[in-house]
């Protein structure tokens, strides 16, 4: 599985990948919300990458961000203050949650990133919201053109959309390998593949995805079977919790993370005005919890549950994510109504309290495995 190793390498060496891109005289733009229309950045010949934190303490950010702020946002900001992202030419923030809205001010005031952009993002997908968001995406395109001196043509947007749609389609194909019993790939493997898509050029990622799909045909030793798990929550920028769940008898076969299935489930329509189609795709995709249409996310989870023959679900809510904390009891009830055992866990991005999480997951899987 040579391709798999290369996904892993790219994850571990993500900053080298970005610096390598820069050394060719090109720009790198960071973002943290999957409602950022990356295609527009890509069409400006810049590399869009998702900003993540790292597991561990957030001593740099703690001087500025209170302990009740989102632990993911705090960890990202900590990485920025530490200098992990010093190579960024620009950063895009939005208001998809209160943490992000206010963290924009943190970036403006305390980071060294030369250009910070704010993309207003509606919390609904009515036609009025679409109209407003399209104007915002047009302004975003103009900012990119002006700041990075790269004109963005409709042709380059169309070309980008094809690359991005191919990426989404290939990821979906690999995702479906988990329908098999036992699944053809593990949850950790899939997450490594999906996460690497967020930190490297999509053309390179597509090539590796193709290679992986041909590699996987030769796979003889399948990962061992276990409790087929669906994991839900906001963002997952590391493999720690999936690894933990799979180490105590689970097989993560489906997910509802913004960096998982929700990232690639929906394509951009290739007909008509490309920028309009890009903007529309983001507001219409499987929604995050901040959207008015949150019940559509519950339906997505319910469909995954059936399609992937899920035995049990774990809802991982990152501290202190308001919108998911509100949705979690509702999603739990929906899944229980479908007859699924559900475990609800809150986790700190710093991974303090990991041992406690392990005990609870283990006990839960034993309970589920016992009644299976």
């Amino acid at each position, binding site marked *: 599985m040579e391709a798999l190793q290369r996904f892993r390498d790219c994850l571990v060496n993500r900053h080298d990948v970005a610096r390598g891109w820069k050394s060719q005289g090109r720009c790198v733009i960071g973002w943290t919300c999957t409602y950022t229309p990356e295609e527009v950045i890509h069409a400006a010949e810049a590399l869009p990458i998702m900003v993540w934190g790292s597991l561990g303490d957030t001593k740099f950010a703690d001087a*500025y961000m209170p302990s*009740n702020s989102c632990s993911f946002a705090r960890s990202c900001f900590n990485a920025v203050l530490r200098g992990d992202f010093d190579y960024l030419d620009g950063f895009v923030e939005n208001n998809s949650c*209160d943490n992000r809205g206010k963290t924009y001010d943190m970036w403006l005031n305390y980071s060294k990133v030369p250009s910070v952009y704010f993309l*207003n993002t509606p919390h609904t997908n009515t036609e*009025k*919201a679409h109209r407003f968001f399209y104007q915002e995406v047009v302004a975003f395109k103009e900012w990119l053109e002006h700041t990075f001196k790269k004109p963005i043509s409709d042709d380059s947007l169309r070309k980008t959309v094809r690359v991005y749609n191919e990426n989404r389609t290939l990821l979906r194909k690999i995702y479906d390998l988990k329908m098999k019993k036992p699944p053809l790939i593990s949850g950790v493997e899939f997450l490594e593949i999906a996460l690497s898509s967020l930190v490297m050029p999509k053309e390179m990622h597509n090539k590796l995805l193709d290679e992986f799909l041909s590699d996987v045909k030769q796979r003889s030793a399948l990962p061992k079977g276990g409790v087929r798990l669906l994991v839900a929550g906001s963002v997952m920028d590391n493999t720690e919790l999936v690894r933990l769940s799979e180490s105590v008898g689970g097989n993560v076969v489906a997910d509802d993370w913004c960096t998982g299935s929700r990232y690639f489930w929906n394509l951009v329509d290739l007909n008509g005005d490309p920028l309009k189609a890009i903007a529309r795709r983001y507001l219409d995709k499987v929604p995050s919890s901040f959207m008015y249409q949150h019940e559509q996310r519950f339906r997505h989870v319910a469909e995954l549950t059936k399609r992937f023959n899920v035995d049990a679900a774990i809802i991982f809510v990152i501290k202190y994510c*308001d919108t998911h904390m*509100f949705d979690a009891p509702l999603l*739990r009830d929906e899944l229980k109504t479908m007859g699924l055992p559900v475990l609800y866990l809150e986790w700190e991005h710093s991974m303090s309290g990991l041992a406690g999480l392990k005990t609870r997951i283990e006990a839960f899987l034993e309970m589920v495995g016992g009644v299976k």
Partner: protein
Amino acid sequence: MGASERRLKSTMGFYKNYVKKFYEDAHRAKAEKRPVAWVSSTFPVETLQAMDITPVWPENYASVCAARQVSVELCERAEREGFSRDLCSYSRCVLGSMFGYEKELPEGGLPKPDFLVTTTCACDTHLKWFQVASRLYKVPLFLLDVAYNVGGGDSAHLDKAHIEYYVSQLQELFAFLEKQAGAKLDSNRLRETLALSNRTSQLWMEVQDYRKTIPSPMDARDAFSAVFFMLCIPGSQLAVDYYMQLRDEVRQRAQDGIGVVEDEKFRLVWDNLPLWFNLKIFEYLNSLGAVVVAEVFSHTWAGSLNPSKPFESLARKYLPNLANSSIQRRVDIILSLVKDFRVNGVVLPTNWGCRMMSIGETIVRDVVYKKLGVPSLIIDVDSSDWRIYNEAQIKDRFETFFETLTRKQSGA
């Protein structure tokens, strides 16, 4: 004069005379089958008032429950249903009251809504909390989605596209309200309501202006009671009448040189919310010679409405609310309060369940100190959940802060 004698006559018995009555009226409306709507903070409530829909403010109800010392039990009730302890205590408190509470609820609980109206203008929490209520009560929820005022401008300096997006949704809002209330909007009535709301805002700001006087005639404890009308029913004759009475009393005190504290040592700005369960903290501050002369909250809700441009002026009133704006807006408001009210110190309380209020206080502290040399005190508290509140620690922090201010004043 004792502490209670220094409180304004107008705010004595405020709860009984106005707040309690407000909830009685709302229950009566419900019993008489007149439409009752739950409404979020920063929603243009004047639209409901113009349609004779009774607006009920769950946020205010949470502060009532905190003042009545039952908010923690209600929060725990919501936590038992799986709602995280880290969520906004207002929302947990109200959700708790909805899930059923074994004791008698303050004011008989909130009347059940016929429908809900919310906005993204204040925070994510309102939309999410109202979604839960909408599912539980099986009633429709209208969302007024709002562009984030990222430039931080005031009502005269807003993005045109943000105003257009807002205004375009007000048309839909009225269609929704007409359907729910089974009545047509009377545009004269809308103009009257806006004119009343306008007058309410003007009077409230007059009251605030008199607090620039040294010694200040009015304290935060009075303000956090009396601001009720600004939030809940600004477009009403009742609000106008009450604020006239309040204005007259505060003006008289200012003219007579009667202050909350006779010998004012420290004049403070208070950001965000008070500790609703412990409003006595303001009397404790008074006992140390400190008086809150301006709350950012009291300077957040006024707006100048133009009855001949109703939709646009509602957008201009609510869009620049600091909850919906970048930190620059909060910084600008606090800088001008510090200057205009001759303030020596700024109190920046965070709010455990509130990201919107908690993130950015370091920027406020740094900028206010850099520009005006005025120190700030950040205290980690919660408006309604006293389980994370340590009074001894907070009092220590205040005393240390006042020592710093004293040293600064004496030039040491």
